[in-house]
């Protein structure tokens, strides 16, 4: 029991919060650049303190609870949404040494815990006693439950290839070849499903601004709203981390460039994923609910199953079997 065991998570929390502030700024900057704008520039040099100012504003704002809302659930919902988003970070191996909980069923833990967030959103939407919030919450529940399945199915291929649910083991199995190549179908399914899990464009139906105003968090203000936002961005952090670990070889260097420390490699891949998320947000329109369901059940799930089947098949083929 070193001090690291206790300090580590605290440091991580701060790091993650730091990431979130930067990520929001980064997202706004990227969106701005892609739209011919400059993004935030007013607060701090290069707009660096913009998010800090926003968060401060949110903390100072009046905390409004609608009169007809279910007060207890209304208060607890942001916490339910946020805690799992943060808890899943524990199992992600940033390098071979920086990992907080190297548990055997890391991947399973990640997926299991992350689905709790749905409950938070559902509770938040329901307890607000607002029709838009309710619709958003219902959409969110339907969407997240539907996409959990292809998400899990798509990683089965990776688990088969690595022979382990431990995320560190999975990264180590990718030393020669990243799973993105042999598990390409799996990666596509995983990526699309994770977009939907994150409620990000083009799957941002629960908070579809132009339809549901703000969806499940329409009645939230101040720091409770901040918690939902935080959960969303921490989740982005976690999902980008998981994608890196599962398919992009984690901290493994490319072209054998070991002169860069592993953490840099991890960060680079991770940022690439985050950038793609923002890039997609800048480009694509929103998908419709029934089409979303069709995509999930009729396209992604069969694809994921085919992927499992093919992975199993190729594993037995000599020569390339090593990679699967």
């Amino acid at each position: 029991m070193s001090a690291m065991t206790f300090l580590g998570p605290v440091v991580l929390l701060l790091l993650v919060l730091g990431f979130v502030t930067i990520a929001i700024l980064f997202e706004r900057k990227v969106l701005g650049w892609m739209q011919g704008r400059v993004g935030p520039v007013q607060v701090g040099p290069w707009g660096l303190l913009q998010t800090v100012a926003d968060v401060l504003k949110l903390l100072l704002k009046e905390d409004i609870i609608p009169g007809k809302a279910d007060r207890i659930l209304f208060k607890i919902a942001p916490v339910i949404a946020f805690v799992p988003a943060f808890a899943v970070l524990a199992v992600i191996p940033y390098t071979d040494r920086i990992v907080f909980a190297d548990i055997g069923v890391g991947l399973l833990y990640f997926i299991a815990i992350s689905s709790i967030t749905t409950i938070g959103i559902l509770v938040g939407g329901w307890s607000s006693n607002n029709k838009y919030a309710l619709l958003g919450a219902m959409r969110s529940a339907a969407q997240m439950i539907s996409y959990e399945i292809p998400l899990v199915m798509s990683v089965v291929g990776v688990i088969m290839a690595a022979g382990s649910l431990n995320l560190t083991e999975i990264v180590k199995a990718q030393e020669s070849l990243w799973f993105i190549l042999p598990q390409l179908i799996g990666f596509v399914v995983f990526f699309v499903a994770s977009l939907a899990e994150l409620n990000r464009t083009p799957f941002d139906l629960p908070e579809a601004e132009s339809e549901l105003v703000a969806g499940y968090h329409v009645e939230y203000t101040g720091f409770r709203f901040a918690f939902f936002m935080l959960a969303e961005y921490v989740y982005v952090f976690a999902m980008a981390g998981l994608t890196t670990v599962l398919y992009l070889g984690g901290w493994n260097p490319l072209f054998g460039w070991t002169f860069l420390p592993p953490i840099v490699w991890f960060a680079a891949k991770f940022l690439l994923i985050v950038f793609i998320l923002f890039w997609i947000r800048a480009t694509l329109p929103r998908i419709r609910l029934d089409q979303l369901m069709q995509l999930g059940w009729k396209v992604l799930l069969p694809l994921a199953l085919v992927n499992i089947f093919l992975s199993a098949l190729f594993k037995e083929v000599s020569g390339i079997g090593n990679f699967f």
Partner: protein
Amino acid sequence: MMGLLKGMGVTLKTMSKKKVTYQYPDEPVGMPDRFRGVQHFDPEKCIVCNQCVRVCPTDCITLTGRKHPDPGKRGKIIDTYDINFEICILCDLCTEVCPTEAVVMTNHFELAAYSRDDLFKNMEWLHENNTEIRSENNVNAKR
């Protein structure tokens, strides 16, 4: 799928292009000469013909005049001239009818104020608003 990727290409390309936004309050935005901004009023030129008051679609101009103090001269001189910028729509009709170009447009457009009373501009204020005056004014009258 190709359609999606093409679209992503467009946004990516735009990322490196020149930004088109103005840094407005930091850098002033220049307006073309014909811009219809807050009026400038020159009491010297005004002949109190009341045309601007009559043509104003929102009735935002009020003026009073009195007899010329010099008994040798005919006509009137202006006493008060107020424009209520709460309702002025800067439609340019007053400057269009003014036969002497006593009321003309300037390029100023910053009218924001903390109080409604501040939007009620009198003759002195309008007279002092004398920079960036538009060069062509009552084009239709000249014709």
